[in-house]
């Protein structure tokens, strides 16, 4: 299990189909360097969630399949693993929409994240206390039923629960969906903290391009199942096309990368 390469995750040209028919990803390649935060950006239906689920092997439960290309995690190919095996290898996905266990208390939710680890009661409490240092808000609400906590708190529960599995890598699927700007900042602060203090590598799917890039090292922009552009977070933030299409600083009426590429091709031909 020694992995000397600098990347904890290396996705090479994957193609994903649902029900053997519906082509969700055409060709996605991306790398997550160890200890870095990488943002996967794109609109609804671009293939962000599908990419994350391909990595965590959660695709199977939605009748999806990687039909081409390869995924390498920590130096080993991923193909036949089950989601719980992936968790054992240190890869945990925080699903879109938080997905807390509504009838369990906040604390039970978080503890459930340690299920795959063989820990004594004392160890669990110790880990729990450590987790609470990142999620102070949750400690106050530890005895509440999770379904009755706010959206921001539920997102924190979902991340805290994933952290209890002691991941080397976290996959966050739209962690700020539907949250107020202040909470978005709070969530991202925690994510950054987990990244720097716990050394967790992070791949996060977001629609909130601006905030995501400001908190990431590297970014990929995907559209209709293809990577359209990638670069360091800084370069993407300053890229004219990204500004226009994703940050809403628009001069022309172009809506996506396909339009941009089409126009560029036209210009080339006319020259």
């Amino acid at each position, binding site marked *: 299990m020694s992995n000397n390469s600098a990347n904890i995750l290396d996705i090479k040209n994957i193609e994903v189909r649902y029900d053997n028919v519906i082509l969700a990803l055409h060709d996605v390649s991306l790398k997550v360097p160890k200890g870095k935060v990488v943002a996967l950006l794109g609109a609804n239906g671009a293939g962000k969630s599908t990419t994350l689920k391909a990595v*965590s092997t*959660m695709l*199977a*439960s*939605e*009748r999806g399949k990687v039909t081409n290309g390869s995924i390498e995690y920590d130096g080993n190919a991923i193909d036949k693993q*089950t*989601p*719980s095996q*992936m*968790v*054992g290898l240190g890869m*945990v*996905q*925080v*699903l879109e929409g938080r*997905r*807390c*266990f*509504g*009838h*369990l208390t906040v604390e*039970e*939710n978080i*503890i*459930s*994240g340690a*299920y*795959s680890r063989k820990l004594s009661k004392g160890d669990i409490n110790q880990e729990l206390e450590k987790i609470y240092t990142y999620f102070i808000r949750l400690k106050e609400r530890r005895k509440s*039923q999770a*379904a*009755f906590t*706010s*959206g921001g708190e539920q997102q924190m529960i*979902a991340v805290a*629960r*994933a952290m*209890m*599995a002691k991941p080397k890598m976290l996959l966050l699927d739209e962690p700020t969906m539907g949250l107020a700007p202040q909470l978005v900042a709070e969530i991202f602060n925690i994510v950054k903290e987990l990244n720097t203090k716990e050394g967790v590598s992070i791949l996060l799917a977001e629609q909130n391009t601006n905030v995501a890039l400001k908190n990431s090292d590297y970014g990929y922009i995907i559209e209709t199942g293809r990577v359209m552009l990638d670069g360091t977070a800084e370069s993407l933030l300053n890229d004219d096309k990204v500004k226009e299409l994703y940050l809403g600083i628009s001069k022309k009426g172009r809506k996506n990368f396909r339009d941009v590429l089409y126009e560029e091709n036209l210009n080339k031909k006319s020259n």
Partner: protein
Amino acid sequence: MVDELLFFMEVLVGGLLAGTMYSLVALGFVLIFKASATFNFSQGAMVFFSVLAFCGFMQDFNIPFVLAFILAALLMVVVGLCTERLVLRPLMNASEDTVLMATIGLGYVLEGLAQAAWGVEVRRLDLGIGDFPVPWIADNLKLFISALDITAGLVAAIMIIGLFLLFKYTKIGLGLRAVADDAGAASSIGIPLKHIMLLVWSAAGVVALVAGCMWGARAGVQFALVDLALKALPVLIIGGFSSIPGAIIGGLIIGAVEKVLEVYIGPFFGGAIEGWAPYVLAIFFLLYRPEGLFGEKIIRRV
């Protein structure tokens, strides 16, 4: 007047205690429903299969009572194991309806296996507990209550406490509750669904064995036990499909209501209304409280 009141009490208590036997059957359904959101149509067959095996061990192989019970319980764990491996795992990502149909098939397989192995004749099961009024209670309280009913009540109480402790305070219990809430999220954090499935099917098997012993002692160990499990349906509708306390209370309500109605209203219908009265009650619940008394409401924040 006092005599009438005593008679009513007797009917009521008898009904409540008989209801615990329904509760025991319903308990098996709840366990599986919690984990896989599927109504397990093979639960009745599991009752029949387990208690027939128990009788077979005792009567055909002369194995002592306790050992035979343990063997039958182990057999049910093996059945749970095979069910997980051969039926549920291949259907892991299939829809709930598919799993539902599979449980119907599983029921037929179990019924067939049981009869192929142990024969088709009705067997007598003697638990050493008579199905006649306890003299002490008859003398002192002037109530005629069957010893078997009282035993069933005690057994149901013990099982309920045991299951409650298992779910509330153990790791696998936490896993089960997590899966019951959101199986996808549970697998995303590494809770292996197959362990949970194995647990609930084995537990449901053992519960089926206990229920089968109680019913077998009363009515004989026979094929009719399979259909008896259907009585659990109104119990579950009233109690809630996903609630263990619900299964118990639902069973008590069905037991009490059907006996009281039978005695006091039955004559107006020419008797034998206990067969259908529970279903009428269930229809009212479906109309006015579809999640049952204790079923988990879908919590939605607004």
